[in-house]
């Protein structure tokens, strides 16, 4: 077992190809309950990517925003560049507690594919792409295609997530992230919603994504379509009801499926109201 901390991406990709290490960045998922879990990692090498400069940056690019895999939650909500995507900042602000936010990386949140992951929900709503690299080269994949289900992704054996790409359309669009949790801080979501919606005569897009209420974040295109046409408050109620109907929540120690489903409706309606009924400002 070895702990690798390469400074160059190429070095990391070589290791991926040869040693198949466990990728680690903040370690906020993999090291939880370590003493009881360590056996499953027996004999594995570790690849710590957080010294690789190119995956630590947030950059404005021609077709949107590029967030490095190792960028942590605190960096996201503190980054002026990320002010263009406030829904992701809102999610980053409630990931775990402050200590966790200082370590938890965005790619870790995506790769871990927990149904209750916070940052993943706005990434879905923003139409994010996952940028993957291996010694064979680079591929980009829509996040909804990358995440297959709880703890399951379509990452290939020697691939490493290097960046998350946020397309131009979501930048500076009215948006929000709302989370229902059990207490005032350091919590895990019962249900969450991200809404990115711009409805005017020139261009119109509406993305409503719900988290923690199905195996992976989901949207209901038919319902989103209704908002395109008419954003009146009774339409929002109907949209919320559609989302509640399409949710596939589970019953666990935190909440029952019934309550989660009802709360999907509550959060969708609130999210829509917050985004569409608030006076829209045009920036960027």
């Amino acid at each position, binding site marked *: 077992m070895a702990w690798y901390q390469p400074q160059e991406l190429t070095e990391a990709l070589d290791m991926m190809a040869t040693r198949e290490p466990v990728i680690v960045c903040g370690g906020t998922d993999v090291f939880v309950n370590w*003493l009881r879990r360590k056996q499953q990692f027996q004999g594995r090498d570790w690849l710590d990517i957080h010294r690789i400069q190119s995956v630590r940056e947030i950059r404005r690019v021609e077709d949107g925003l590029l967030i490095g895999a190792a960028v942590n939650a605190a960096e996201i909500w503190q980054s002026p560049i990320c002010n263009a995507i406030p829904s992701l900042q809102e999610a980053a602000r409630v990931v775990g507690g402050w200590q966790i936010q200082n370590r938890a990386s965005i790619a870790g949140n995506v790769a871990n594919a927990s149904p209750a992951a916070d940052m993943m929900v706005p990434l879905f709503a923003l139409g994010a792409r996952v940028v993957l690299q291996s010694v064979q080269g680079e591929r980009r994949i829509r996040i909804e295609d990358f995440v297959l289900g709880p703890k399951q992704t379509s990452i290939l054996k020697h691939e490493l997530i290097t960046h998350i790409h946020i397309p131009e359309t979501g930048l500076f669009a009215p948006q929000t992230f709302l989370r229902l949790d059990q207490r*005032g*801080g350091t*919590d895990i979501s019962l249900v969450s919603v991200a809404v990115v919606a711009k409805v005017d005569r020139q261009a119109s897009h509406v993305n409503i994504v719900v988290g923690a209420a199905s195996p992976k974040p989901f949207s209901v295109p038919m319902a989103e379509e209704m908002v395109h046409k008419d954003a009146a408050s009774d339409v929002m109620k109907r949209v919320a009801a559609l989302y509640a109907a399409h949710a596939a929540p589970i019953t666990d120690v935190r909440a029952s499926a019934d*309550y989660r489903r009802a709360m999907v409706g*509550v959060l969708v309606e609130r999210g829509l109201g917050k985004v569409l009924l608030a006076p829209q400002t045009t920036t960027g």
Partner: protein
Amino acid sequence: MSSEVTMASDFPAKISGRTQYVDDLHLPGELYGGIVRSPHPYAKITRVDIREAQQVAGVKAVITGDNVPHHAYGPTVYKDWNILACEKVLFVGDEVVAIAADSRDALRQALDKVVVEYEALEPILNPHAALQPGAAVLHEAVPDNRPVKIEFERGDVDKAFAQAYIVRSGRYTTNRIYHGHLEPIAVIANWDEQDGLTLWAGSHIPYRARETYAAAFGLPEEKVRINVPPIGGSFGAKYVLKVHVIAAALSMRAGAPVRIALDRYEDMLTAHPRVPLEIDIRIAADKDGHFLGKDVVVYGDAGARIYWSPNVLASACTRADSLYQFHNVRAKGNLCYTNNSPTTCMRGFGNAEMLFAVENVIDEIAEGLGMDPAQLRLQNIVHKGDTTIGGYHLDSCELEACIRQVITLSGWARRRDFKKYHGLGMAIGNHVSGYRGIDPRFDGSTAVARLLASGRVEIETGEIDLGQGMSGTYAHIAARVLGIDPSFITVQSGDTGRYPFGIGTLASRSTVMGGNAVKQACERLRNELANWVKQHYGPTAVLTGGGVEVGQEQHALAEVARDFISCHGGDAFSVKETYTPATELPDRTLYGNPSPSYPFAAHVAEVEVDPDTFRVKVIGYWAVHDAGMVLNRPAATGQVVGGVAQGIGWVTMEDFKVSQGQVQNRSLLDYRMPGSSDVPPVTVEFLETEDPNGPFGAKSVGEMAIDPVPGAISNAIAHALGVRGHDLPLAPERLWRIMQEQPQV
């Protein structure tokens, strides 16, 4: 290694991580101990095979029920404990095999290699199932599974209810709450043929632990010594524990010190939570709102063995009768064995649970009569000088003033104008300062006061500081008697081999019981020293705070101390005093005056309830207390704020979710407790008058702090929603369901 705290406070060491808890201590040659536990709530053990576990390199001892003593023992009069299970397991977590090894890895491997086969039996999961005809008998000595039955009536309850203008009633249930101590349960045990058994363990009743553990092994008590390092939180969790006994059994077998430290998962899986109670209650009043009677039937779930659940049930059945003038009261209490993890005491001790029910019903009576709930309380409470219907002598009682003050502080009159989803609720409470029934043999306290050669004064006590500020309070008392600065006082406790006997820190007894002993000891030290200095320095010598004055001549206290030691063959000036309170042992109906003094409080909570998610936010809290004279203000205030925070968790989120006897949410991620953003600023005020029986007029505060909280918050929620929840916790989903069931307007 015992705890040593001066008035300068234990905070800096704790905050900076320098405090050495049990898990920070190490003995040479120590082994790691671990336990194989039952995965079944109730099962016959059909096979135990430890051969492979014994073969693991580094394993030094493997013990089963077959090679430990089987004396009847237990911490109370119910001797239903074992060391390891033999034929049957009685709850998920029941201990079957224990192993000691020289490394954690060896221990883990060996634990995995133990084979235990079971034949699962139909478990008894609640008190009603326990009482069903034909239910399995969990302990032979108790064929009806009901180790405790309480029944009493004072006055004529049926007649009172027949004459009532209004009766309100309901079934209220309180839940399994985790104590939430930061420091999980841990112990180091060392067996030595010469000295016997020595334990380093967090216990705030170490002398009872000593008695219990000695009985477990058939040892004389003097062969067991318990050291208590600083305790990282308890709230009732760290009394007398099986883990301690098992570590001792392993040490005897292995011939080496054995440490067992539970991680959070095991701590929560095997936790002995707050005794869940089901309370059927009704209260009667006349048309002017004067109470006529109270009638309760209580079922308590003891779990598979008896810890302190009998006393909890007794408090639930009696304490509120000494808060209000009900005139006629009746209680039937049933404590039942079940196949749940044994339940035990937690701050509030049955009283907070019953007050949850009482205070809700009283609000319903107020609603029924169109009265202000505060006014209804004011006209029915007890007062100074009363002997209550339960037999309590109230030598001091500022309850009425507490209610009037909390009305003012909270802006109670605002209540009428609140919109829906905004609520203000009141509850009041009482408690004891020590309880005679806990140990019928003795309920006092003993303290030693000693003038050290350095001029410092050392206080030894048998009571235990568990973080509540006891040592600071004792230092304050000693300093006040001796006229010296508290920083010159050192308070020593937590070693049954060195310090005087003590009942321990329970029933909110440490300030009054231990404090009176400290005060007596220091008074005697001062008086005898004053006499001795006249003999030694001459008749004009006068003892002052800083030393002795003989005319113009000054002798510092250190010099006086050394002079005394020189004249007494090297012995420091030391006195020992015992305080014995003038309390009465409660009779068979639990009537009597069991405590030297009774604290009171009135609380008001303000809440906002989210109209869609039903998340409750406590946005304001006011707590006015009669704790007698306050001796250690930061600690007393901290107790109240902490009690309120703990109560907020209890009412709005905390709950052990148990399915088939198995705790489902055994991590602090899944068992939610409040964080700082869930606790509003708490306004705390003490209305100080002297209680004649307390040291410098002090009464208790520790448990009083939480007693009214469930009532106050639940009444506020009921005010906000117009609907009353009866089952704790009133978590969002439960409130949502209650509201779903309401007829839609």
